[in-house]
């Protein structure tokens, strides 16, 4: 058998804040071990060196918002054997998908003096709306330990162990008092996928949905509960409309309560 070569890894960026790819550089304790096991072949945020594709593993950050990027993502797919989207922008369109609920031209005109210089699509969309995606890693930002799990699973030819249950499970594991039943602040925990370690509830605030909808969520039941407890409809709409606003279950729920 031929000597095993290191898998070539590429990191791609679309519309995003760079935070999810930064998570890779934030693996300070593990970074040198990672580069022992893989070859960083394309990662402009970290290196000016470029190794030609095809790539064994591609990590894709960001959403599709321009005609150029809608083309570019197909090139990325063609040059990648296994493609993982990282973060809420790539998996759900991100915070910039708030434009999807309005006319984007109003937004452009509100921000730039000469809107005709700006080329942008009417909607910000998830990568999986454009190409086949092998695995999706959620979060705004992603959890770096989950990123390590995805890379390690890939290197060992197994399925990543990323739970799809709700934040509530993490709250219970941490022994936190449930804010829903004790009249705490509005919380999206019951419909949001775990991954943060129930971060906000441990800081005395409600979950605001960084990791997007859990598997088989029931947001209408949760909304009913909040409305019964005095929440205003427009606040409910805002709650579902943040970093994962255009993920289907959250989108449908916010639209259901919009005037």
């Amino acid at each position, binding site marked *: 058998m031929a000597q095993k070569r290191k898998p070539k890894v590429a990191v791609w*960026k*679309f*519309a*995003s*804040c*760079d*935070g*999810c*790819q*930064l*998570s890779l*550089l*934030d693996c*300070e*304790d593990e*970074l*040198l071990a990672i*580069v022992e096991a893989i070859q*960083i072949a394309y990662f*402009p*945020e*970290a*290196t*000016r*060196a470029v190794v030609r594709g095809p790539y064994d593993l591609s990590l894709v950050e960001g959403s599709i*918002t*321009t005609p150029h*990027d809608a083309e570019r993502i197909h090139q990325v797919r063609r040059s990648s054997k296994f493609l993982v989207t990282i973060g809420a922008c790539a998996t759900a369109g*991100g*915070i*910039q998908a*708030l*434009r999807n609920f*309005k006319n*984007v031209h*109003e*937004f*452009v005109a*509100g*921000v*730039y*003096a*000469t809107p005709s*210089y*700006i080329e*942008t699509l009417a909607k910000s969309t998830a990568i999986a709306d454009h190409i086949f995606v092998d695995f999706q890693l959620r979060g*705004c*930002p992603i959890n770096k330990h989950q990123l390590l799990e995805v890379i390690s699973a890939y290197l060992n030819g197994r399925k990543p162990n990323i739970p799809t249950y709700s934040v509530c499970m993490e709250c219970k594991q941490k022994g936190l008092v449930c804010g829903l039943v004790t009249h705490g602040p509005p919380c999206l925990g019951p419909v949001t996928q775990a991954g*943060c370690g129930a*971060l*906000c509830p*441990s*800081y*005395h*605030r409600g979950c*605001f949905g960084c990791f997007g909808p859990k598997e088989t969520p029931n947001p209408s039941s949760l909304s009913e509960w909040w409305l019964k407890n005095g929440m205003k409809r427009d*606040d409910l709409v*805002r709650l579902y409309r*943040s*970093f994962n606003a255009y993920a289907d279950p959250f989108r449908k729920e916010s639209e259901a309560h919009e005037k």
Partner: protein
Amino acid sequence: MKNKTVKVDYLARVEGEGALHIKVKKGTVTDVKFKIFEPPRLFEGFLKGRLYSEAPDITARICGICPVAYQMSSVHAMEYAFGVKVNNQLRDLRRLLYCGEWIESHALHIYLLHAPDFLGYEDAIQLGKDHPDVVTKALKLKKIGNDLVALLGGREIHPINVRVGGFYKLPEKSEFDGLLEPLEWALQASIDTVRLTAGLPFPDYECDYECVALRNPGEYPFNEGRLVSNRGLDIAISEYETRFSEEHIKHANALHSVINGRGGYLVGPLARYNLNFDQLTPLAQDLAREAKLGEQCHNPYKSIIVRAVETVYACEEAIRIIKGYQKPGSPVVDFVPRAGIGFGCTEAPRGILYHRYRLDERGEILNAKIVPPTAQNQKAIEKDLHDVVAKFISKPEKELTWLCEQTVRNYDPCISCATHFIRLHIERE
């Protein structure tokens, strides 16, 4: 001298997507464009209709590298509008959070993004092959900054603990115990960093910028102060828009800032240092002198030393705050939302970050304006590129291109903020 074009289509080791395009005609630089092709994300547009309380979490998403800066400028703006003052320990904790972001961001930039240029490496991974001890130390320093942000903010990227009026939850004094020793280590590591960076080879180039930074009595600036410059500007942050404006340039998805009637200016470590040298700690001042920085530095490549000096300051300041910390009774100052306008301006690692919000009586945002540091530096970046190419025009193409990239990296540009990666294109006709 011949005509040529320097072109970098996708600039590496910066945050975001940008390109350079420089044209030289008969030995004279005729056109310099620092292009930003980061897709516009339209934050100011969708902040409209959101509540004041959502601004820190939403604006943090503009930048994964300096989310704390966005959270700080936005909470200060809201507090300005509501007439709230956050003082004493809560104010100190905000400075402490900022120390964490400065340490983490400066260590990232000095070692992983900028130092490889001076030493001729493509990246820190290759640098690490020859000097593993340097990169290991850099990562440890960066991690300590991140640990500080994570302890106070909940996580390194997009922290969740900052709110208008203070915090959601305050740490116990004992929670900081485990951080003091690492911070003492970080202080020593940043002292070593000043000495290491001082010995790097610097291109012989100076530029006479108008430097703009915050200045507040008795401290090196993070969260508040007046906006001052080395050419006599001295204004309250609420006057920012009367003296500064933004131009929309065709080649960039970002807006270029100018001082009305005077043109481009400089923000960031160099500007802060030049305007606040006297506010540094004696140790940081001594190290700066030892590094032969002088009280004024106009060589933008030496910003790498200034970042190291600021890291020393941030470590000392963090240690001081932690040692004096007594947990306050309440994590948040009480306030009632009211209609009005709020201004916030704080020192992100890359320079001043300005926010302005108009709010209705419930605290709903009617309009927002955000001016990130990289947009403010864009004119200075283009001027440097112009002058550097003119000065070093005889260098071979490859070397000149790399020098141009290094010149942009002096600014630690955050193009995600200014909207994002760099293509360099020098055209010699």
